[in-house]
């Protein structure tokens, strides 16, 4: 008997009767890791929720059953369902910030599950919690028990979340995008911890993710979902090497690849350079004292040549976003110089306006970088306010031309941002940044909020536009896969300092610094296999 068997599950939106999960069946055997992969709207999360009968009120089950150890969850009375939740089926969610209760200590939250579901003395519980916290890598257990969730980093919180779920040694763990909110290195640590904990407790895992290469690394079997349907399933290796369905091939093709290296003239004056850049945050004047400032950048020098794409990589807290913000003029530098075309950028000085026009930015979140009250036409035309002597029809032509270039055309002119998909919005943001033909573009995690296939399209578009217009770019990202595809040169940052920089091939093939190696070892190397599939290898990073 399978541990979990979902049979012909069909879910619909209660009000409109539109089907969001269509006739999905799957099995999970004891101790097995099964992954459901799909993009947003594929229904993968709804399937995971239906396992526990935890779907949202607005969603109705039209057909199907969810058999856990042979019993249909949907047919059980609520009291029985509650007994199974937590105790026999554990869940870990994407957002470690919100899945732990901010007003309870870690100790309290970990003990709660044991108190509810297991009969044992308080001493035994405390001992069990302490052992578990040590296992997930918490050094000072006594302190952690008394601490609140906000005192821990995102990665630590997700470890604690795992600890609290695995304390009860459930037979099945449902992990919904457990590492999506974390950066690459932390992501790998958390995944390995999850695999280790579930292996030793013989817990089966139903892993929900959009990240096919990551999933392929850990899962025994993979199910691919698209718009509510299961399109393909099979052993992880086969799905990668011999994908059968077109959509699976499309997902694989969306994985970033290294392109050919380009020659960049390094003898000309850099478009943008910073020298000895230091930025302190905080240090606000309180009533009686000045709070201690936090140094985000500790003396950074970079130079970006014309027509060069420079990627800045690093984990959260490395200072890469601050660097982008200073160069965009959004955060003042505490000390150091910003040079445009070899001349220092100073407000009011000649050349300031030229720098302002020529250095544009594309932000991470296309949902928040467009004013929700403006139509696309107005949004894209806005930078043209500062171009003197443009008539209305001329402006309209410029807008139409740039929208055409980013592949949107004029069909969207009268729409509002919320009527567009994430990828379309990011195209609008790119159009807005490029409409004045800037010489320099700052792209701060421009594709990390997008689905994988959309990400591939936007990256293609970006490469095309870069080739056509020849602008330089500072590409800020935590995703080394994407960086490997777009960058000419790579700068690796850690704790507000540059630890390594060099051409893309140097950094990716012969990393020098330990941190670079650690970043690289967190992502798999992909090798093209015959038959349209790929094979995954651990990256040889040298050193250890």
């Amino acid at each position, binding site marked *: 008997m399978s541990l979990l068997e979902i049979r012909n599950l069909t879910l619909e939106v209660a009000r409109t009767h539109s089907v969001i999960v269509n006739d999905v069946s799957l099995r999970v055997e004891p101790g097995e890791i099964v992954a459901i992969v799909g993009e947003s709207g594929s229904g993968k999360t709804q399937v995971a929720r239906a396992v526990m009968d935890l779907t949202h009120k607005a969603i109705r089950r039209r057909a199907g059953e969810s058999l856990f150890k042979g019993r249909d969850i949907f047919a059980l009375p609520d009291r029985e369902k509650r007994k199974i939740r937590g105790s026999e089926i554990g869940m870990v969610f994407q957002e470690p910030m919100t899945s732990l209760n901010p007003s309870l200590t870690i100790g309290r939250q970990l003990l709660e599950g044991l108190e509810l579901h297991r009969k044992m003395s308080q001493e035994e519980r405390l001992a069990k919690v302490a052992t578990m916290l040590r296992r997930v890598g918490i050094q000072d257990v006594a302190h952690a028990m008394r601490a609140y969730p906000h005192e821990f980093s995102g990665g630590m919180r997700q470890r604690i979340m795992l600890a609290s779920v695995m304390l009860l040694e459930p037979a099945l763990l449902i992990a919904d995008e457990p590492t999506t909110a974390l950066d690459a290195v932390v992501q790998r640590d958390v995944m390995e911890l999850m695999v280790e904990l579930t292996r030793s407790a013989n817990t089966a895992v139903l892993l929900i993710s959009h990240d096919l290469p990551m999933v392929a690394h850990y899962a025994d079997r993979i199910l691919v979902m698209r718009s509510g349907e299961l399109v393909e399933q099979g052993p992880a290796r086969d799905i990668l090497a011999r994908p059968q369905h077109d959509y699976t091939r499309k997902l694989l093709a969306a994985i970033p690849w290294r392109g050919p290296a380009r020659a960049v003239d390094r003898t000309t004056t850099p478009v943008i350079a910073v020298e000895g850049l230091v930025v302190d945050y905080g240090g606000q004047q309180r009533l009686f004292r000045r709070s201690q400032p936090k140094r985000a950048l500790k003396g950074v020098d970079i130079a970006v040549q014309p027509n060069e794409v420079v990627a800045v990589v690093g984990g959260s807290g490395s200072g890469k976003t601050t660097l982008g913000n200073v160069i*965009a003029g*959004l955060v003042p530098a505490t000390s150091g110089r910003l040079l445009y075309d070899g001349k220092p950028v100073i407000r009011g000085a000649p050349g300031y306006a030229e720098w*302002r026009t020529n250095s544009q*930015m594309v*932000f991470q979140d296309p949902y*928040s970088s467009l004013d*929700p*009250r403006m139509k696309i036409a107005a949004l894209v035309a806005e930078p043209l306010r500062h171009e003197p002597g443009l008539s209305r029809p001329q402006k309209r032509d410029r807008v139409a031309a740039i929208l055409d270039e980013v592949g949107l055309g004029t069909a969207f002119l009268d729409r*509002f941002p919320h009527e567009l998909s994430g990828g379309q919005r990011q195209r609008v943001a790119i159009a807005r940044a490029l409409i004045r033909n800037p010489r320099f573009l700052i792209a701060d995690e421009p594709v990390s909020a997008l689905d994988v296939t959309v990400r591939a399209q936007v990256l293609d578009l970006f490469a095309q536009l870069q080739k056509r217009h020849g602008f330089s770019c500072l590409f800020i990202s935590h995703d080394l896969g994407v960086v490997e595809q777009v960058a000419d040169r790579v700068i690796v940052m850690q704790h507000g300092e540059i630890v390594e920089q060099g051409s893309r091939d140097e950094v990716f093939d012969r990393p020098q610094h330990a941190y670079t190696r650690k970043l690289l070892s967190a992502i798999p190397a992909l090798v093209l296999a015959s038959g349209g599939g790929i094979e995954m290898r651990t990256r040889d990073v040298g050193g250890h």
Partner: protein
Amino acid sequence: MRRFAPNALIGGVLIGLLFGVAALQTFWMPHDPLKLNFAARLQAPSAEFLLGTDEFGRDIVSRLMMGASTSVSIALMTVGLAVLLGTTIGLVSGYNRGLVDRIIMTFNDALLAFPGMLLALGLLSVFGANQYGIIVALGLAYTPSVARVIRGAVMSLREREFIRASRTMSNSEIYTMMRHVLPNCLAPLIVLATSMFGWTLLSESALSFLGLGVPPPAPTWGNMLAAGRPFIEQASWLAIFPGLCISLTLLGINLLGDALRDRLDPQMRGAV
């Protein structure tokens, strides 16, 4: 074509009626609202006096009609004043942060610590108890809460990426504030303004209780309500009808305000 919500329709009809009545009273009323008629004191509603008469024999319908224009114009101007001042202060304070913000907000919070009514009373003693005194006093008394709400909205907006994007486009700070920040503050502002409209109508009645309202014999809904209190047992219509007018106006303004807020928000368009 968008669907017109029934709520908006009800609100529209109520407020339309109100303005209709306020306009009508300038050239026609059933009786003279100021004429004393001791023969007809405290009469119950009848065919002659539709809603009865007050303790001086004045027709309630006519007084309500005349009061409508006074009460509503007081409320509109008060809200207008508070919104204008409060929004300016809130925008400047929330957008600039730093020292300016701290000074303005310390002062603002000190004002907020006073009950609005007390503040208005103090201001009234300076400006004098007449229609314009009431507008200025209540308007200033409500300004701090508007400033607070707007400042909060601005502070969360200024961290949004489209505000930062506007700066990278070489837009001036003033332009960014007017084009991107202010329109996105509209939703809380409309909600607040509609509730303030109600507070004003009620405060004006409270001021009348204290003898600081619009001086008699001019009728307002507030002072009619206040004047009806001693007769609540013998002639309840004296208080009931002005109260009903205030309630219906509040209902109308709130429904209309909600509809307006949804209509001005592109994301709500097309939603049911």
